[in-house]
């Protein structure tokens, strides 16, 4: 069984982790046309090489990033998600009817 190094908990059996897919930051949904949104949502690069992935240490529900070579299955490094996502993300108010939220 592989070992993965959790940035919070240290090296653990891979069975303690859940894979969360490739890191592909979401584009601004409002400025994307339907096709581009669908492409982002459903198309994967399936890269043969080093990819950045989300992993979750299940006992602590701790999400982090791993850089892994998909050819050799070697995990090159792991680090907290905060190293990649540093800023608060805001969404522009909807153009359609900004006041419309009712009680």
């Amino acid at each position, binding site marked *: *069984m*592989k*070992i993965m190094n959790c940035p919070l908990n240290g090296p653990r059996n891979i069975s303690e982790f*859940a894979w*969360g897919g490739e890191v592909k*930051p*979401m584009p601004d*949904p*409002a400025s*994307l046309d*339907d096709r581009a*949104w*669908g492409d982002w*949502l*459903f198309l994967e690069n399936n890269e043969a090489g080093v990819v950045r992935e*989300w992993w*979750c240490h299940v006992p602590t*529900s701790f*999400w982090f990033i791993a850089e892994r070579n998909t050819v050799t*299955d070697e995990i090159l490094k792991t680090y907290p*998600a*905060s190293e990649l*996502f*540093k*800023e*608060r*993300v805001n*969404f*522009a*108010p*909807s153009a*359609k*009817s*900004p*006041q*419309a*939220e*009712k*009680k």
Partner: protein
Amino acid sequence: MAGMNRLPAPFGAWIDRSKPISFTFEGKPIEGFAGDTIASALLANGQTMISRSFKYHRPRSVLTMAGQDSNTLVQVGEEPNCLADKRRIEPGLKVEAQNYVGSFEDDKGRFTELVERFLPVGFYYKSFHEQKTSWKKWEPIIRAMAGLGKADLKADFHHSYYDKQYLFADVAVIGGGPAGMAAALSAAESGAEVILVDEGAELGGSLWYARFNVDGTHGSLTRGELETAIAAKRNIRVLSDAVCTGLFADNWLPVITGNRLYKLRARSVVVATGSIEQPSVFRNNDLPGVMFASAAQRLVRLYGVKPGDRAVILTANDDGYGAALEILDAGISIGAMVDLRATVPTNEMTQAVRRAGIDVIAGHAIKEAIAGHGKSRITGAIAAPVAGDGKLGDGGRVLDCDLILMAVGYSPAAHLLHHAGAKFAYDTGSHMYRLETLPAHVFAAGSVNQAYVLDATLADGRRAGWLAARDAGHSAGAEPPAPVELGCDGLTHPWPIFPHEKGMDFVDFDEDLKYKDLINGIADGYDNVELLKRYSTLGMGPSQGKHSAVAAVRIVARETGENLNRMSVTTQRPPYTPEKFGHMAGRVFEPERRTAMHHRHLELGAQMMPAGLWWRPAYYGQKSERDKAIREEANAVRTCVGLIDVSTLGGLDVRGPDAAEFLNRMYTFAYAKQQVGRCRYVLMTDNAGVITDDGVAVRFHDEHFYVTATTSGVDAVYRQMLWWNAQWRLDVDVANVTAAYAGVNIAGPKSREVLKRVCEGVDLSAQAFPYMGAAMAEVAGIPARIMRVGFVGELGYEVHVPASQGEALWDALMAAGGLEGIRPFGVEAQRVLRLEKGHIIVSQDTDGLTNVWEADMAWAVAKTKPFFVGGRSAEIQAKKPLTRKLVGFTLANDSDPCPEECHLVLKGEEIVGRVTSAVRSPSLNKVVGLAYVHPSDGEPGKQFDIKVDGGRRIKGVVTKYPFYDPDNKRQEM
């Protein structure tokens, strides 16, 4: 009583003659000593034949005495396929041979051999491909003939106690022979924590039995020194009688000993697994009396058993001469040394044998072992001159013997290295596979690494141990030098294969494959060793090609003209030796979750049902009265008051300045303006706009929402929330408090009266505490979160309290409702009640594709929020025509049977949807349900076809829901 073939001490180092043990073989009493294996005890008592072969039911006996072959598989009690040459005897053990029809001695199945030409290689492919022959007819016959032992699951079967345990080491050394012992010492001297795993009963490997010098002292002296040194090291732990069956990623090593599987994790590993002696192929090379020289040496030295009275030794190296000296010491006469080599080198060993007056026949091979009566013991050997690779010349001699020892070469026991991804190449000098590359953190030492001379083996072990320790972060002193003279050349004969025109010249003993079978397989077109393996089953038996793989490669190379250097042996995969399901299973760890009220439900006669890992009451009462119980429980809620345990419901505390903003993003609805003290529905979709969960958000504070989620969905919801906020970085904290709160729903027109009696600090009147209201208060003196929600469609309150006080809450409410006759109700009644109200259950009434539009839940989507997960996709879906629609339905003819979940909805002959829920409503006394229908049939009053059991079609009528109390007067009273 010691057995007729028992040798005196010092032979038999592993047996304790002061402890006799009796057991039975085929019903006959057998006497052995503590330390004996089944096989050694049987041979000591003259019981040569131990088992019968898989296909031809040929008599078989000891081949390796090392647990590497399947010639001695026996049934021990109810356990089939035990290795008789490894399994230690115990008092009262009931041992039986395997693979015979009628009696073991007079097996009717042995006549299969006479029809062997009708059982060609690739028999299954040829016979059953394209149904030329009926598999159905043949299967029972084949299974009866070819089974390995008996697994009787009906009679007396009981579970044995197996378990697993983790072990941790800096350096794991696999193999307790000279190389492994030296490696362990060297690593320990560097300061590493070492675990030394050894298959043997005691450390030493070949040092116990092999002849390293003429007088045989070298091995035992070396063993003694190493053993003393290891015993003195506190940082070496020795696991004896333990087999490492695989080498997996990041040095994860399964090690089996007894009924335990160790999961050993090491920073670095030294593989010192030695090598496996290889057989010669000749006629009758499989019969009792033919064995490896090393097997005979083990029998003599370890168990004090004389394997025969007169031996012929077939050899191609000096080790055969060492074995000869050993055999002579044991008082066994030697008919001749038959040496494949044209000239026998002159050295200490060969000279010593010659001095003993033994006839050395150079340039000869064994053409055939003479099968004795019933083939149960050979009675001689026919030697013939070698006339070229695999060819024998005319003439030859008949040699009288009851024992043929094979010493014609080795193959590295490289299985674990293969598992790790090491690469090997055929070495034309040594005629063995040589290690080419090693993966990181794995080292090899000893004869698996071509170091055969004892000094080289020890030096190689010291070097590998030092390197492994350094790799694990422990370094001391200088790197020991690599051995110079390995001694691997001249040990292994390149072609010890001598096919016989009358066959029975076995290449693979497990699968009864003869030389001709391989030739025919190649002729059939399977001329690649990997293909031939699958076609012929070569190497697929219990010993996994340990003795057949190299011979097969040689044969294929020759037949196809391929260069051996460019061929590899068939891939060796884990496990190295067979593992039992018990080892894989270990203790059964199947977590289950129980609510605080679990035992109260049992006391009330509940039938429990699983819900994810949880157990929930389905209904209360006898199974025979299920329907009645559910009806009465539902009725109690509609007319009086009922109490259901909802502790399994997911609960999340979402707190912080951004709590409302966070919910706005996670759920489809809008929460920024939700009032404190009010509940609001939550519906979650994923990024693709598919409905994934629902529940209720209760705002207890400006910055605190208590959000419920489905029992099975909450863990995923929680994980998703954390994942999104790892990206958004909102100032919000999410805590999964599911287990921390026990909860009940007290529901029914009289629920307010009952709750009032035990509730303090809150006014429960309709005005002060309306539908969808919420408050924190005390119930029966327990701090509680109270929510007035209406899943079942009556006046009702969910009361959530700290889990450790959940049972006390249940007790208090059951007592408080005594006057009204409060009735506990289960999940089944709740499902009926909610369906009457038309509430969907996510993942029952929705599937992996359901979007908000087809589920008719547009009302739950706030269309003006800047963003919510799934919103962009929902927007796109809204522009597309619906492909199906979730509707409520009743039946056109109410006397039709109630449809079941997943009954198909048809439009003409086309499947357009399915029933997701349906029940005969006790409150309305008619069938009500939910179903996906074609969008054109989505309006109330439209009829559609449902295909029910038996293929019958009935008519559903789209009906507006809620079916029950459409104006919601009852839940809002």
